[in-house]
């Protein structure tokens, strides 16, 4: 089966600044790929390249021809000059039935808001509506840029559970961006840690038995979340340049490391 999206050796330069450097990334059907990295690491830029909104300066981007994308942008703000109801927002680029519309909103617990003006929604409500909107197009690739922002910890856990449920039901691939460097979805197939380039990538370790985790998130949350242990083979100078560790000459300069598969 060909990958939904495949990036090979992608580089991106904007205003003389190198934003992405030799990035490889693949999202296949049923896969949940989590992209993490500090602020300014180029996560959203990478997502835009993968979506085809931005053209890479180097490398190759392959998108499967039957790609149907459900996208949640990192920022969504509608100028109050444009009146719009939730219903209208949901159906901007898609024709659908009332049943499907309500089902999508209900899955995210915001069915009651269907006729509300989007200008009166809270941040969390808006986020749920936008998530429901991304699912409504029956996408085979979900691209979610920080889906848990504006949600509290319980909301975030629930959000991950719904994403996993939708993946299980529809078999779509998921590309998920998170600003949390250590805690990711337990169902994640691969984590990519990005800082301009891919620092490391691999499988997250599920931590549902870790007592510390149980205490923080409860049993349901702990089985939804996983820890990602970073295995970097290099350090970053204050300006972001990669500095190789000269005390460790044995270290392979291979950016991809295998991780032990944790229980999940």
């Amino acid at each position, binding site marked *: 089966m060909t990958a939904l999206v495949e990036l090979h050796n992608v580089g991106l330069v904007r*205003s003389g600044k190198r934003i992405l450097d030799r990035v490889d990334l693949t999202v296949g059907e049923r896969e949940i790929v989590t992209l993490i990295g500090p602020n300014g690491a180029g996560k959203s830029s990478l997502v*835009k390249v993968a*979506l*085809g*909104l931005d053209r890479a300066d180097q490398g190759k981007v392959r998108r499967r021809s039957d790609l149907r*994308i459900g*996208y949640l*942008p990192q920022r*969504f703000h*509608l*100028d109050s*000059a*444009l*009146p*719009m*109801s939730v219903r*209208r*927002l949901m159906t*901007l*680029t*898609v024709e659908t039935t009332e049943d499907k519309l309500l089902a999508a909103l209900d899955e995210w617990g915001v069915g*009651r*808001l269907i*006729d*509300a*003006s989007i*200008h*009166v929604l809270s941040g969390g409500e808006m986020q749920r509506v936008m998530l429901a909107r991304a699912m409504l*197009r029956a996408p085979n690739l979900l*691209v979610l840029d920080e889906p848990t922002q504006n949600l509290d910890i319980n909301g975030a856990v629930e959000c991950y559970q719904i994403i996993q449920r939708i993946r299980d039901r529809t078999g779509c691939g998921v590309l998920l961006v998170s600003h949390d460097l250590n805690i990711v979805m337990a169902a994640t197939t691969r984590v990519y840690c990005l800082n301009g380039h891919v620092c490391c990538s691999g499988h997250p370790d599920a931590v549902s038995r870790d007592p510390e985790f149980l205490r923080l998130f409860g049993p349901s949350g702990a089985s939804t979340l996983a820890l990602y242990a970073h295995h970097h083979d290099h350090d970053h100078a204050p300006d972001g340049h990669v500095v190789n560790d000269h005390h460790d000459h044995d270290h392979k300069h291979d950016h991809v490391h295998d991780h032990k598969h944790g229980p999940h």
Partner: protein
Amino acid sequence: MDDFILRALVAGCGIALLAGPLGCFVVWRRMAYFGDTLSHAALLGVAAGFALGVSPIIGVMITCIAVGALLLGFQSQSRVPTDTLLGILSHAALSFGLIAIGFMDTVRVDLMGYLFGDILAVTATDIAWIYGGAVGVLAVLAMIWRPLIALTVHADLAMAEGIAANRFKVIFMLLIAVTVALAMKIVGVLLISALLIIPTAAARRFAKGPEAMALITVVLGMIAVGAGLFYSIQWDLPSGPAIVAAATFVFVLSLLSGAGSTQPRQS
């Protein structure tokens, strides 16, 4: 009612019909300055029309399309901020237009008429132009309405969902160029963007959706045209400023009216 007043009213309502839906997009897309620049460039088009011996409307359309294309092209560069660029082009176009018209000794040009509009001098041919243009522009706008709304809400989102942004941007720019050319006679180049923006701003408080807002804008625009025309004749005012002043009163009244000021939260 005298014939010339009737013609003025019919022409003015045609422009309100045209300016309403387009004006909504100008406001939603925050393109007020863009509209200003195109309409100021219209004066240059008038001069070009005379120089080439074609109708001023044709000259204006061609000039506006050229300036619009220039602006779209410049939007992707980052050496000059877009609003600065718009400001430069807007006033440069106005100045060069005035200079060019100043050179036209052989043709007598009613400069005041082009700057502030001369609704009472509207001919049957003008009306044919306005309604023909309005039908064409509104038909095209209806065709691109849904994708244009999606792009206005969030460009990246719409593009990720398969909408070709550039094509619709170019079409929309062409529609504004045609509208500017048609509205010039009624309100004058200095005030065209006011006609695009003020009725739209007044309509916002009464509208729950984009389509309703466009319709309300048309109605409020027609009220402004009617009232402006009436006082323009009554007190011998220049027609463009009278219509824009009336639109401003409509806007102030909309602020004072309570309707739509509270949007109840659904629960």
